[in-house]
């Protein structure tokens, strides 16, 4: 079926299979492969994106639900050669290894800092509990969110 959706500021009219997820729409139809497919059931957060400002696992959202919605993905962050403060903080603190969880982790961290500019360790842990990382042991991800918060505040 045909849907109209705005993704990262661009309007699209797409013909989607009713069984398709928003993640499949982003990756396979719109070529936005920054959102990753790692579990297909909303457990890992690798596909984190925003729908009308709400943080979602895009693998759990039917593509048809994006009809008339405003979708934002990791590709919307930063601009040109400039990284978003969260992206830069992930690099500065060594919070990236294989990087497969990173786009989703970055999106979830940006979402947290937009709501809470000075989160505590506990708040960060709760906010990122739905984003799995198998490489880092998470310590440097905590560091990255704190650093980004400080950078955004200054």
């Amino acid at each position, binding site marked *: 079926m045909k849907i109209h959706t705005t993704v990262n500021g661009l309007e699209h009219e797409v013909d989607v299979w009713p069984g398709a997820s928003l993640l499949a729409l982003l990756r396979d139809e719109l070529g936005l492969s920054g959102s990753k497919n790692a579990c297909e059931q909303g457990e890992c957060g690798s596909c984190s994106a925003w729908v009308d400002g709400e943080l979602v696992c895009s693998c759990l959202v039917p593509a048809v639900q994006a009809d008339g919605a405003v979708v934002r993905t*990791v590709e919307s962050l930063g601009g040109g050669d400039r990284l978003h403060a969260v992206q830069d903080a992930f690099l500065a603190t060594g919070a990236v290894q294989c990087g497969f969880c990173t786009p989703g982790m970055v999106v979830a961290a940006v979402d947290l800092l937009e709501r809470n500019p000075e989160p505590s360790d506990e708040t960060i842990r709760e906010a990122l509990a739905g984003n799995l990382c198998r490489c880092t042991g998470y310590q440097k991800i905590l560091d990255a969110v704190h650093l980004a918060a400080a950078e955004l505040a200054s």
Partner: protein
Amino acid sequence: MSTTVVPTRSGVGTSARRVDGIPKVTGAFAYGSDLDAENSLWGFTLRSPYASARIRSIDVSAARRGEGVAAVLTADDLPARRTFGLEFCDQPILGDGVVRYVGEPVAIVAAESLEEARQAALAIVVDYEPLVPVTDMEEALRPDGPRVHDFGNILRHVHIVHGEPDSVEADVWVEGYYETATQDQAALGPEAGLAVPASDGGIDLYVATQWLHVDRQQIAPCLGLPEEKVRITLAGVGGAFGSREDVHMQIHASLLALKTGRPVRMSYGREESFHGHVHRHPSRTWIRYGAMRDGRLVACDVRLLLDGGAYASSSPAVISNASTFAPGPYEVPNVRVEGTVVYTNNPPCGAMRGFGAPQLCFAYEGAMDELAKKLGIESLELRLKNALHTGSVLPTGQVITGTAPVREVIEKLQAIPMPPDEPASGRDAISYPGGAGNVSRGESLRRGVGYAVGYKNIAYSEGFDDAAEATVTLRLGPDGPVASIRTAAVEYGQGLYTVLAQIVRSELDVEDVVVEPATTESGSAGSTSASRQTTMSGGAVLGACAEIKQELAKGPLEEPITRTYTYHHRPTTELDEHGQGDPHVGFAFAAERAVVEVDAELGLVRVVEIAAVQDAGRVMNPQGATGQVEGGTVMGLGLALMEELKLGDGAVRNASFTDYLIPTILDAPPIVSEFVEVPEPGAPFGVKGIGEMATVVVTAAVVAALRDATGLTLNRAPATPEDLVGIRPPATTTGPAPVPDVPGQKAIPEYLGMGLGQQELMKAREQ
């Protein structure tokens, strides 16, 4: 090799930023599952629902008629060699007359869309005759039971006798039995890649893997192509941890691409991924230490059994590793080790971070704690008293010629302050075991402290020359000299390429360094595994830089200078009939301390803090090194507390991230990591690999802390809430597994002349 390190802004010893960092944070980095090509098809795999069955017939007619279907292939359609394997070619590309595990590929489909491919696979009718499977590793040893392969169920038995273990007098003996569960690597990136048919009849394969050349060596004969017509380029790798050492979708996608003449992409879903790669071997260990009253170890007797699953994978090397490390990082003059890995109809097991060492560390450190208690000696004191050092003789007779700073590692750990005590009541609910579940106000809270010390080899063993080639080019750019590195070594997130770039920056005093894509057009760099690449590819890059520097000494840089260097580690030997030899290149050691809180009523655990000290030789990138310790620690903590691939009749019962739990950020404790830097003689920069040691020791340390907190036996990892509240009793045994009758120390498939995988690659190099 002598080296002069010129300090540069992001050279050796600095926390240089990742060379692949920016595309990874923006989402632009292309992983295997992100690849596509014009006019491409999707590949899909039909897998066996039976652990053991005869295939009577396969009817693909309906599937071939399916909408969008371009090809359906079964074993009958294979063009050339029908089996593959990392060490031995014992694994069918597609179920060939029989299937031996749940999840074994039986047919492959290519279609216009993934959904059409999936639907076509469902339309394939396979007539199976179910057979009685072997799903228990001790049952596999029974001579009268069913056989997984015609030649039996023994994959390899390693026998090590050192000193006179049968006539030892000891003041004190302790005996223990330990089990570890099957663990999954659970790399977030799925098995994925793209196969593109080439105009010369060959194939261009883009894939997430760990060793391009050993993949090609297995793929080419199965396609009936010469190796030069199979060109492999590394795709972005979303974590590996050993799971990508074995071929997954490579041969299947290539067969479909050659059949259809169109590019074929394959990417496993999470459930399929659990079936599509090998796992960490579950283990059963019977261990007995003898000591004198003063704590001096005099004997160690170990019986070890690993479940290798249906095919060999790297099990023969895993059992050898595990067996040679069996008495722990301690001097023991009299040792007997009998280590067996068996075939069963469970999913194949193979490489996973630690490669046999974590299972043994769990056993020997558990037994060392028991021994310390019995002797009335403080547990780390007992370890210090027996610690290996340079010059120590190992159970294989190997004399440690490199560094072995076991004492230094333990003493540095002792110097790390303990985390402060916390009040039992009045805390934020999230700080109790169960955390965000809000289930406690501090009732029945028990704190415990546990330690573990362990070790592992670096690089490949038993006579294997896993040499690494690298090419470095220095040229003049518009703003000064620039360098590039060409290597077939795989970067899978651990930071290898960043470290290689740091080496070039320091050696050639050039800031601008590019790492080119890894392809089989370069010579083999060996596997990215066994904590070997910083030593091996680092050594190759260092060697190439040294030759460029010689050239620069003759005059200023005008034309580009390119040098290729192949680095070999010192030679090692196989084990003789008594398990004696010089099998390992060198060793790295680690010690960790776990502090835990247990809610004794609910069996829930909060790991308060992990302190980690690792023998690194030389820290090349401090931030990257602590990242390896932190990540490796949390992975091993997963095995201590929650990670267990549950098998029922050979089938994986929890093949999802809903049911197979890996630690989240709520489970991960603060980790204090420090390094002991005693340069390893002969290694480039004195470096030792660091990827695995934390994982080797932390499972044992966490469970030791749980024992300390609860007073329970806890001889099984993971220690789950059922264990911690006493619903499930400790693992029991009727006695050590029998020692099988085998012709010698080698893997059984080798005696049968089955194709040698990696060995063949190395022999070809020697010719």
